[in-house]
């Protein structure tokens, strides 16, 4: 069977892929996609840690990790809606989706 550490390693790997994309890409849409990858990796870590303490399903706080992952999914949905609205608004203003064109607050 798979140990907890294998899931955590996979989660870290996915998080690093997302963080690398967030750092290196200039397309705003791809940046948002990278953030989604990172949020998914964090959810995987939450669920894996909760599974390591899954002896009693009816104990108080038995599903805390899964509840955290649930709220993480809700936050990701809200973040995507607002982020894509900002992308549309920026495209209307600048006719571009590059991150270095977004300099309205510069200077």
């Amino acid at each position, binding site marked *: 069977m798979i140990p907890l550490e294998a899931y955590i390693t996979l989660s870290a790997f996915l998080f690093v892929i997302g963080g690398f994309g967030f750092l290196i890409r200039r397309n705003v849409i791809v940046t948002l996609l990278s953030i989604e990858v990172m949020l998914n990796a964090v959810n995987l870590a939450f669920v894996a840690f909760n599974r390591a303490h*899954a002896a009693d*399903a009816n104990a108080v706080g038995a599903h805390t990790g899964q509840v955290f992952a649930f709220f993480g*999914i809700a936050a990701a949905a809200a973040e995507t809606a607002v982020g894509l609205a900002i992308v549309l608004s920026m495209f209307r203003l600048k006719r571009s989706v590059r991150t270095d064109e977004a300099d309205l607050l510069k200077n």
Partner: protein
Amino acid sequence: MSTVANLYFYLCGFIAVCGAMIAVTAANPVRGAMGLLTMILSVAGLFLALHAQFLAAIQLIVYAGAIVVLFLFVIMLLGPSARAPRDQRGSVSRGFFSGLFVLVALVTMYLSARAAVHADPLPMADNDFGGIDAFAKSLFGEALIPFELSSALLMVAVIGAVAVARGEASKVETPAAKRLREARASFETGAAPSTGEAAE
């Protein structure tokens, strides 16, 4: 049984890593969204292996059903300009710091993977762990107040998204508003002399 579980984990993990790499490196954002979809599906498979059946369903409904579709809507709305043209300005420092980040993370992952070789397997779980009944007991028990507050979060996000995305569209004059403005102007220019006559 054990080898099947191992094979399932490695298959899902491999597909998830491939999907994440496609999502991050694709030049075409539509391909990137498809890579994200692949990753979401395989992470949902891993949730099933981790006794989180309800979360796997939520992952499919919310992520694959709503978020990826929202991404695709925006990419289609932007059309060909969703592909930002490449240029090389500042890519040396960008690449250097990203490489540093990946290097540090790889060392951490190596330590974690080395610990995984000799680690004990996960303990047996209750049969109803992660099902809707047990999960709802936690969600509506100790996490009731955050659950209610998350509805406020989603409401604020919806209102904020509508307010931000409307943008300049409200400044464009609709035909009805134009007729109203012209009628008001003609009424004022027409009414001013008539009141003057009435005063005389």
